[in-house]
């Protein structure tokens, strides 16, 4: 067995690779070889450290030294100074941005504090199909403590003090919701877990259910104890087969261990959980529609009040919470409300899980404390924008949310700041856009989703959104007029004001937010018929560069509408009145003679 006494880790993430980290690695190898050290020290290329602004990164183990912005030439100094003489190379050490001091050990870097896993604490750590692993990590201890030592009112007090707010989108204070449901008088009450997760691109809830299903079951039982319910229902979309499978296994194991069922832990409290399947409609994530769907009725929303806390499932008081909201509960009980409230901002406590997607290097699932900035998420965790392109905006809140532009890169992210910025927290989809994304097309994309998902019960949402979509379509096809921009605004505000449920009330947000932040882009679509991002096909103009064209006739033969003419071995021409902007000529030309404007 080789016994290396030192490891040199060189970052091989996209960003660092672009700045010669391969060469850094091979320089290390050569240099160590020259000193005859290759048997004692191993050089390894790693995935992205997520610290790309300061790349290339080199980390040395076991002493946890973190070098930033290392060049291939620096390797010699690191080998001679650090490896051989044991003296750290000061100038390459990471500098704390605030104290300006060099940080010697990575554990002292606040970079490691950027992600804190509370809701995801067990995901990727325990085997989700083994209840004992969950129990070993404090699992069901919170439930046990609540049932044996704390009164329901005290538990509710704790949840209120923790400042936990709903993670399903609305951000309603969870403790308050529990209190309201507790106060409703009835012979039967229900706890419902909303695992519908319909936002395009979101998969936080799925990951929690797949990685740590017991945390949700435990929290539901605690909720049942608080509000006085003995029955819990998980509403989950049938498109999540693995999450369903793991949840079923978890429910059965919890029953087997006596942690669900009658007389839990000998306390006289009984609680059981069942699964209800949804067909995967976005509107069924709305709590009233969700309840109707569970009752076997059409998944359509109804007017609130009555709120589910008064009249929910089967007309009985029902407490609906999101998966991630529940996953936070056991930790709050175990570690205390004060601990939880110490993380985050004034009115948004704890962490939020985001599904980071789009034009970003490290696509993935992250859990960050409330109050973190977009810049930290994108550049320190996400590894920066793909292909070194320019950051344009981040879409949060899915079809109900909006875009955050460059000017919000340093805004602390919490419920209130996002709303003030014209977007919303939503359930946690975070889609990063770069300069090749057209904002009109983005608005159109979300509206198309809304159109598909609207239940059609009320007119403003059903017909209004269709008209809104048609206007956007007109604009992206180059037929828009300046007046259309005002129309978009007017129609949007009517839809917002008059729709019945949250889906309709928020559906124009992507349009309004892009209009606010990217008015120029809309304007150039309607006045000069140009799409700056080059995404709106219909607005492109194809022409042939007479100097480059060799007259090979390839484009002429491939154009589906016969818009190209020209003699063999002579320059060709595109008849603009016939061109349908399909782009075939551009793709086919071997001489780069087709120009797009």
């Amino acid at each position, binding site marked *: 067995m*080789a016994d290396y006494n030192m490891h040199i880790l060189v970052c091989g993430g996209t960003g660092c690779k672009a700045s010669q980290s391969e060469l850094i690695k091979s320089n290390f190898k050569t240099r160590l070889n020259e000193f005859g050290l290759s048997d004692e020290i191993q050089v390894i*290329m790693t995935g992205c450290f997520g610290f790309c602004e300061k790349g290339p990164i080199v980390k040395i183990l076991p002493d946890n030294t973190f070098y930033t912005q290392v060049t291939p030439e620096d390797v010699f100094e690191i080998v001679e100074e650090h490896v051989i003489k044991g003296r750290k190379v000061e100038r390459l050490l990471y500098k704390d941005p605030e104290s300006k001091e060099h940080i010697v050990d990575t554990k002292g870097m606040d970079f490691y*504090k*950027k992600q804190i896993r509370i809701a995801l604490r067990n995901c990727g750590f325990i*085997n989700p199909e083994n209840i004992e692993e969950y129990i070993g990590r404090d699992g069901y201890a919170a439930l046990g403590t609540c049932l044996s030592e704390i009164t329901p009112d005290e538990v509710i007090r704790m949840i209120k003090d923790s400042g936990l707010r709903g993670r399903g989108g609305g951000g309603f204070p969870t403790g308050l919701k529990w209190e309201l449901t507790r106060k409703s008088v009835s012979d039967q009450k229900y706890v419902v877990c909303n695992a519908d997760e319909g936002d395009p691109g979101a998969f936080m809830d799925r990951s929690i259910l*797949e990685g740590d299903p017991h945390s949700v079951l435990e929290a539901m039982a605690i909720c049942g104890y608080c509000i006085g319910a003995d029955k819990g229902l998980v509403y989950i979309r049938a498109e999540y087969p693995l999450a369903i499978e793991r949840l079923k296994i978890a429910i059965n194991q919890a029953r087997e261990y006596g942690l669900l069922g009658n007389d839990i832990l000998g306390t006289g409290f009984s609680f059981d959980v069942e699964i209800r399947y949804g067909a995967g409609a976005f509107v069924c994530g709305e709590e009233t529609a969700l309840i109707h769907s569970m009752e076997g009725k059409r998944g359509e929303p109804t007017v609130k009040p009555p709120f589910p806390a008064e009249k929910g499932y089967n007309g009985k008081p029902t407490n609906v919470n999101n998966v991630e909201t529940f996953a936070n509960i056991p930790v709050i009980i175990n570690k205390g409300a004060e601990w939880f409230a110490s993380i985050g901002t004034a009115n948004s406590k704890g962490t939020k899980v985001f599904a980071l997607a789009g034009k970003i290097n490290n696509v993935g699932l992250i859990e960050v404390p409330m109050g973190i900035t977009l810049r930290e998420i994108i550049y320190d965790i996400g590894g920066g924008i793909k292909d070194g392109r320019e950051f344009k905006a981040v879409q949060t809140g899915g079809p109900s949310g909006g875009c955050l532009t460059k000017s919000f890169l340093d805004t602390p992210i919490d419920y209130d700041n996002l709303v003030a910025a014209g977007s919303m927290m939503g359930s946690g989809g975070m889609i990063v856009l770069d300069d090749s994304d057209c904002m009109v097309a983005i608005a159109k994309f979300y509206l198309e989703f809304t159109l598909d998902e609207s239940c059609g019960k009320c007119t403003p949402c059903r017909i209004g959104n269709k008209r809104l979509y048609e206007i956007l379509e007109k604009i992206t096809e180059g037929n828009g007029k300046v007046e259309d921009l005002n129309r978009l605004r007017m129609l949007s505000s009517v839809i917002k004001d008059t729709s019945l449920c949250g889906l309709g009330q928020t559906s124009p947000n992507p349009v309004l937010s892009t209009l606010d932040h990217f008015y120029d882009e809309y304007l150039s679509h309607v006045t000069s018929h140009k799409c700056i991002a080059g995404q709106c096909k219909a607005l492109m103009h194809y022409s042939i560069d007479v100097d480059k064209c060799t007259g090979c006739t390839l484009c002429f033969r491939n154009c589906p509408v016969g818009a190209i003419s020209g003699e063999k071995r002579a320059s060709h021409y595109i008849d603009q009145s016939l061109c349908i902007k399909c782009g075939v000529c551009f793709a086919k030309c071997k001489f780069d003679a087709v120009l797009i404007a």
Partner: protein
Amino acid sequence: MNKIKSLADLKKLQTEVQSKIKLREMGDHSETLIQIKVSMATCGIASGAKETMSHFIEELDHQGIDVIVTQTGCMGYCYAEPTIELTIPGQQPVVYGFVNKAKAQEIIEKHVKLNEMVDGIIPVNYSSIDN
């Protein structure tokens, strides 16, 4: 499994399980085993985590090496699926990304058998609440 009857029983079970895990994590080489966790959430499975996991199981079995191979949930590094975490007793866990069959083989040959890390380590960039 008998039903757990009280909070005290639950705590007893918790201590038992914890010491089992501790033993696995801290114990010395002769007594304890290397552990490999494969991230098996939808994203991992879609990128081939199942094949990776069965390759680990079959190959280690074939070579007669005793390693605990288990599954776990999403580690969050979706861009680098399939991901695995390898723990040599007494050492820090190491996460590898893009572990296809070939990489799995390399990990077995080098890291499991020789305690030599190989390329493709994903640096852990978050802290989890400690219990």
